[in-house]
Each structure stands twice: as structure tokens, then as C-alpha cells.
């Protein structure tokens, strides 16, 4: 490091490392607390993983619920979060999400012009089976955002390769969801694309980038990787960053906020912390665990929750598809569609394929007798009826599927051979599945009993939205790969002011962390979509509050 005391290239009060919702929450809140702020983003565009997300923010007892006449007592939200945590959350941090979440969401609406709306009729994951769950109201998303209002940042703010362009959740569900792709209004979507109307994660981050970089003129630098924290007298006082191959040193008088996401693309961390033999990611390739690397280098503590049930998916990599030079992994919802199942190498089903809260831990299950992961990787199997009606990722119903991605056979036994799984068992599994489809009840795994799963992966025109037989040849199958979304099991341990804690227990002065850079001790062992964006929002905000008081 070429830095010497006093040789700073620039200075500010608060430096935000990362431009997802955690970084920009901190940036906006710090700016409005009269602090000077700089945002440094390693990726070539702003928005972070939040811009690749569905743009959902899960907020029990939020103000828009109240305005819509939906009663959600705080005890109810607390009961659900405790259910999700299963004893693995820090109660104080969980309570902070619950109590400050609604307030902070409203702050951004009133002070920063972020236009939230309710996602209508979208139930909690575990509704109605878990305590404290509700049928609607807790998911917020943003109204469509006009990209042209981003000015110079218009083409430097991420769109998402994973989310539908220019629509809201309400529109997608009104058109029938993923299984009714033929009924989507693509003419409207084309018009919205031409008009640069953004929804889902890109829409949400459009609102935040506008509030930060356009309305407040907070300086941001893209393609600028922060490599090292600079410490004086035990406190973080600045950073060494790299841009265009050159070092530069920025002083941060009140603090550095690490909001650089998780570690999906780090060469070792996923294997070390996620306890799976291989890992793939839907995130930008710049999500390389930088926050962990830098903070642990100065003694920060890493904490973790059980990896078995966090936010991740399985998916596939369409040959030739890349983003920013790395393979593009697409998340798969198809296992919950009618006429599709998941099986393991033994050719057997092992979970409710429509509900990823069920299949994730079972996919990770370890067999201590055979010393294997018997359900890893899972295989997606479907039939010709599926192909006629439903999409596979961005491949439209009926469209040819690449042979290098999907195996095809006239019989299930032959398909099993092609996939390297037990074909005879696969035949028996499908026979049993087809019998159960006739009754509309999955006696083995209760598939099709979660309203959330019906909306996301079901065909709601069917009696059981998630069930349909595999009885029409040819049959298709493919092995699935891990599709991480940057919501990792491990991260930096922080206190209620978002200060990063040293491994000895005390806060590291001047160092904060928010969002996926932090250990998910506020949510514990379970997950619910929209919680990652909420914890980024809350973590960034409280970091700015504390920095303003230093």
C-alpha cells in the first residue's frame, strides 16, 4: 500500500461501498443528515444485486397496508419472523427490522420520493401454515420508474437479465403468472421497453439512484473497486480504491459503509460457508465477497446462520448465455409447474417442488451412511404437455430447446439413462405422481398447498395449480445447478447501529456494513423474499444515523 498519513486524494464524511439498496439507503440518509457522501461501485453500473432482484421489500405492518385497511398488528409480524428465524436470529436485530422497517420505508417515500405500492393479493411464503402469516399486504414494490429521469445514469444503472421488463407484479399475476406466458401483453411490454419504463428490481433501484445521484447529486464512481480499509488508531478512516488500474485514497471522516453484497463469485467462500460442492450465481460477477475480505483483514468477525434454508434457487446455464464475461445462470421455477417434477439420482421425488422453502434443505440433506448428498443435484423432468403449455426460462412453449441443455427421450426409462439416473425408478415415480395428479393431492409432499407457490409457479386454471401428470411423450430432463442470489449464510457481524464488530466483540470504529455483506442474524434460519431488500434498507439507514452522530 502506497498510502502515507495525510496523503488523501479525496475526502468525504461517509463512503458507501456498493450501490445496491443498502449502499444507497446509507448514502441518501447520510446526505439528508448534512453529511458529504461518496458512493464507490466496483461494477460498471449502479444498482447492485438489488437491481437484479424482484424488487420486493417485505414489511410487516407497513403504512400502505394500513391505508388499504389491512390490519397487521406488530405481534403478528413478530410471530412470523420468529417462525422464520427458528431460534437463529439475534432478537434485537430482528426486532429492529420489525419496528424500524415500516418507519424507514415510509421515510424514503416522504423524503426521497420512492413510490412504493402494495403487491396485491400476494401471500407470505408460509401462509396459511405458519403463525403470524397474512394473505396480502406485506410485500411492497415500486411503481414503474421512468429510466429517462436518470439523466447521465440512465445507461449506467442495471437492468436485470432475470426479471420481466417494464411490468409490475400485479400485471404479471393478472396475466396468469409464469405458466400463462402466452397470455402476457408483450405489445405493452415492448412499448414500455421503448419508453424505458422499469419495474421489479431495476425499477426499485431506478428510484433510489434518482434520489441519490440525480436529486441529491451524490457523487458516484462505477468501475471503482475498493480494495483495502485504512485504519488509524484502531478506527477506519478511509479506503484504498482502484480505478483504471490506479490506486486512489479516499478519507471518510465519519465512516465507511460496506454494502458490497455477498460472496457468490468468490472462488472459495461459497464452498466454505454454503456447504455445497459447487455454486453458481445469478448475481453480477463483481459480487466477490469484498466486504468480508476487507473487514476480516482488520479483525472483523464473521457470523453465519444455518445454510440450509436461505435465499437461493436451483437453475440452469443455457449454453452460450453470459453476462459480463461469466456464465449466466437462470433460476428455475419450473419444478412447480404442472407436468413437471424433480427427482434425485435414484429417480425419486424428495420434496415439494413448488415451494423452495421445502426443497432447499432437502436438496442439501446429507446421507451419513453413503457419505453423499443423495438429492444433489436435482433433476427437472417434464413431458410434452408441459412443452405445449409452459415456458422453460426464456424459451417459449413449443420452442426448440438446445440439445446441449435438455435431454429428450420417448420413454422415461430412456430419459433416465440419458440423464444418468435410475430409469426404472423414474418410471415408478412418475406412475405414482400421475396417480396422485388424478386425485389432485400429493400425499407424499403436499405440493400445491401454498398460495404463494400457486401464484409463482402454479397454473391457477387447474384444480391443484401445481399438479399435472407426466403422461405424454416425449419426455425431457436436465440436471440443475445452484443459482445463488447473493443471499448468503455468512457475513459480517454487526451491532444495532450497523457497526462491524471485531472478533473480540467491540465495534470497529468507523466501519459499518449493510445488506448482504452482513450475517443474516436479523432473519435467522429461514427466508422470505423481500427481507434482503428490507435488511439492506434498514442497515444502510441506521449506519448513516450513527455516522451522523459520531
Amino acid at each position, binding site marked *: 500500500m502506497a498510502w502515507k498519513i495525510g496523503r488523501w486524494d479525496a475526502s468525504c464524511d461517509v463512503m458507501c461501498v456498493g450501490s445496491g439498496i443498502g449502499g444507497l439507503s446509507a448514502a441518501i440518509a447520510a446526505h439528508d443528515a448534512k453529511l458529504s457522501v461518496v458512493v464507490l461501485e466496483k461494477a460498471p453500473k449502479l444498482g447492485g444485486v438489488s437491481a437484479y432482484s424482484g424488487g420486493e421489500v417485505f414489511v410487516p405492518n407497513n403504512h400502505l397496508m394500513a391505508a388499504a385497511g389491512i390490519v397487521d398488528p406488530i405481534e403478528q409480524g413478530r410471530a412470523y419472523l420468529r417462525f422464520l428465524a427458528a431460534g437463529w436470529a439475534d432478537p434485537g436485530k430482528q426486532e429492529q427490522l420489525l419496528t424500524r422497517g415500516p418507519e424507514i420505508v415510509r421515510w424514503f417515500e416522504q423524503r426521497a420520493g420512492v413510490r412504493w405500492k402494495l403487491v396485491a393479493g400476494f401471500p407470505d411464503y408460509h401462509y396459511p401454515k405458519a403463525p403470524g402469516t397474512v394473505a396480502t399486504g406485506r410485500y411492497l414494490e415500486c411503481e414503474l420508474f421512468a429510466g429517462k429521469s436518470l439523466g447521465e445514469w440512465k445507461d449506467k444503472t442495471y*437492468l*436485470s*437479465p*432475470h*426479471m*420481466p*421488463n417494464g411490468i409490475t407484479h400485479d400485471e404479471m399475476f393478472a396475466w396468469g403468472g409464469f405458466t400463462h*406466458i*402466452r397470455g*402476457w401483453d*408483450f*405489445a405493452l*411490454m*415492448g*412499448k414500455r*421497453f*421503448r419508453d424505458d419504463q422499469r419495474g421489479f428490481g431495476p425499477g426499485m433501484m431506478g428510484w433510489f439512484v434518482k434520489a441519490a445521484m440525480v436529486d441529491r447529486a451524490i457523487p458516484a464512481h462505477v468501475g471503482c473497486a475498493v480494495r483495502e480499509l485504512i485504519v488509524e488508531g484502531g478506527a477506519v478512516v478511509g479506503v484504498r480504491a482502484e480505478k483504471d488500474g490506479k490506486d486512489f485514497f479516499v478519507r471518510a471522516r465519519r465512516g465507511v459503509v460496506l454494502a458490497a453484497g455477498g460472496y457468490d463469485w468468490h472462488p472459495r467462500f461459497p464452498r466454505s460457508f454454503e456447504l455445497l460442492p459447487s455454486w453458481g450465481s445469478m448475481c453480477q460477477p463483481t459480487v466477490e465477497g469484498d466486504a468480508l475480505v476487507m473487514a476480516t483483514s482488520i479483525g472483523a468477525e464473521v457470523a453465519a446462520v444455518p445454510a440450509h434454508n436461505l435465499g437461493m434457487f436451483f437453475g440452469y446455464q*443455457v*449454453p*452460450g*448465455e*453470459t*453476462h459480463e464475461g461469466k456464465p*449466466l445462470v437462470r433460476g428455475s421455477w419450473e419444478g412447480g409447474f404442472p407436468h413437471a417434477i424433480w427427482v434425485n439420482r435414484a429417480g425419486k421425488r424428495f420434496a415439494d417442488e413448488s415451494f423452495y422453502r421445502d426443497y432447499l434443505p432437502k436438496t442439501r440433506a446429507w446421507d451419513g451412511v453413503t457419505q453423499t448428498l443423495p438429492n444433489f443435484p436435482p433433476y427437472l423432468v417434464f413431458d410434452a404437455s408441459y412443452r405445449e403449455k409452459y415456458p422453460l426460462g*426464456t424459451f*417459449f412453449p413449443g*420452442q*426448440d430447446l*438446445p440439445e446441449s441443455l435438455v435431454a429428450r427421450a420417448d420413454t422415461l426409462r430412456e430419459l433416465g439413462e440419458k440423464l444418468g439416473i435410475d430409469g426404472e425408478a423414474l418410471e415408478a415415480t412418475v406412475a405414482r405422481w400421475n396417480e396422485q395428479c388424478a386425485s389432485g393431492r400429493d400425499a407424499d409432499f403436499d405440493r400445491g398447498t401454498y398460495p404463494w407457490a400457486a401464484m409463482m409457479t402454479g397454473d391457477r386454471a387447474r384444480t391443484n395449480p401445481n399438479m399435472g401428470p407426466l403422461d405424454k411423450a416425449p419426455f425431457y430432463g436436465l440436471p440443475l445447478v445452484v443459482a445463488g442470489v447473493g443471499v448468503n449464510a455468512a457475513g459480517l457481524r454487526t451491532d444495532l447501529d450497523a457497526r462491524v464488530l471485531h472478533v473480540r466483540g467491540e465495534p470497529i470504529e468507523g466501519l459499518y456494513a449493510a445488506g448482504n455483506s452482513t450475517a443474516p442474524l436479523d432473519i435467522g434460519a429461514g427466508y422470505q423474499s423481500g427481507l434482503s431488500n428490507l435488511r439492506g434498507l434498514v442497515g444502510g439507514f441506521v449506519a448513516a444515523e450513527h455516522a451522523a452522530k459520531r
Partner: protein
Amino acid sequence: MPEVTHSTVVGVPRDAVWAFVKDMDNWAPMLTGYQKHVRESDTDSVWTLKGDVGILARVVELAAHVTEWCGPERVSFTLTGQNEPVEGGGTLTLEPCEPSAPAAAPRMGPFARLLAWLFALLHGKVARPALAEAPREATRLTFTLRMDAGGAMGPLVNAMLAPAMSPACADLAEKIAAHLEQTHRAH
């Protein structure tokens, strides 16, 4: 149906331009997203391109069929998607024209040339060096491309294709021009 046109002046005689462009093997790798092409006859070939338009980042196979082979003035072709519901076509026209005056830009020193080369390398763009003197002959090269995505998603895909086609079309024309001027000068 999205359609784009890009025109550029090449400081090279038309016959020399035609000699280059009539053989697709010469310029195929200059196409944005080019993966490979297989020549099946004098008029038919199959092109594999990697397209990246928003949520669709696909490897697309296109069957190209030459419908008009009118050298050294014009070649017209159709494109038919083999694995995607997309059709299109285009025309490449070559017209003799008045040579442009050499650019008035100051001569670049070694450092400036290095910077220009680095810029082109980093941004994938063609930096055509200014000609030291006006060429005696020049050719206007005009590339027109139209693509039309079919199927239910067509309106969305067409909206995504339109902004991607223009830079791809310009990039191909400029790369051909830069290559021809460089090689012609060397001779």
C-alpha cells in the same frame, strides 16, 4: 419491424471493396457476437451469433440466403432464425463517391496512438486512423439490416432488438472500412 442503416465512406476503390466483401469469410468475424459460420453453397450459409438483448442473451443460428448477387454494386440477403422465431434480411451497397478530405486532426504522437489503441481495445470500437492524404478513389458502403421477431413475444423482442441493431450495423461497416483502408495503405 426494426430496420437500421449505416453508411460510411471507405478510401478504397469499389472493386477492392467488392473483392473483400464478396467473400463472407473475410468479414464474418467482424460481426458483433460472431461465433461461427458454415458455408453451405455460394448463396447459403448458417451463422451462429451470440445476441444479448436484455433478458434474452442467446446464441442464435441464422440461415442466410443471398437473393441478389450484383457485384460490384450490391448484395441482398435474407435471414431466417433456425432456433428462434426471427426473420430478416439486408442489403450491402457499394457506390463510387468523391474521396473525403483527410481529417484535420493533428498527427498523433506515439502516446496518443497508444491511447487510441487502448480505447479501441477496451471499448470494442473501431478507431479509424485519419488518412495522411486524400485517397484518389473512394466508395460509399451502406449496410441496411432489418429483423423481425415473430411469435407472441415478438413485440417485446423487436423493441429490444431495435436499439441493439444500430450499433451492431455501424460497427460492422466501420470495421470493414478500417480494415480495407489499413490494408490498402499497406500496399
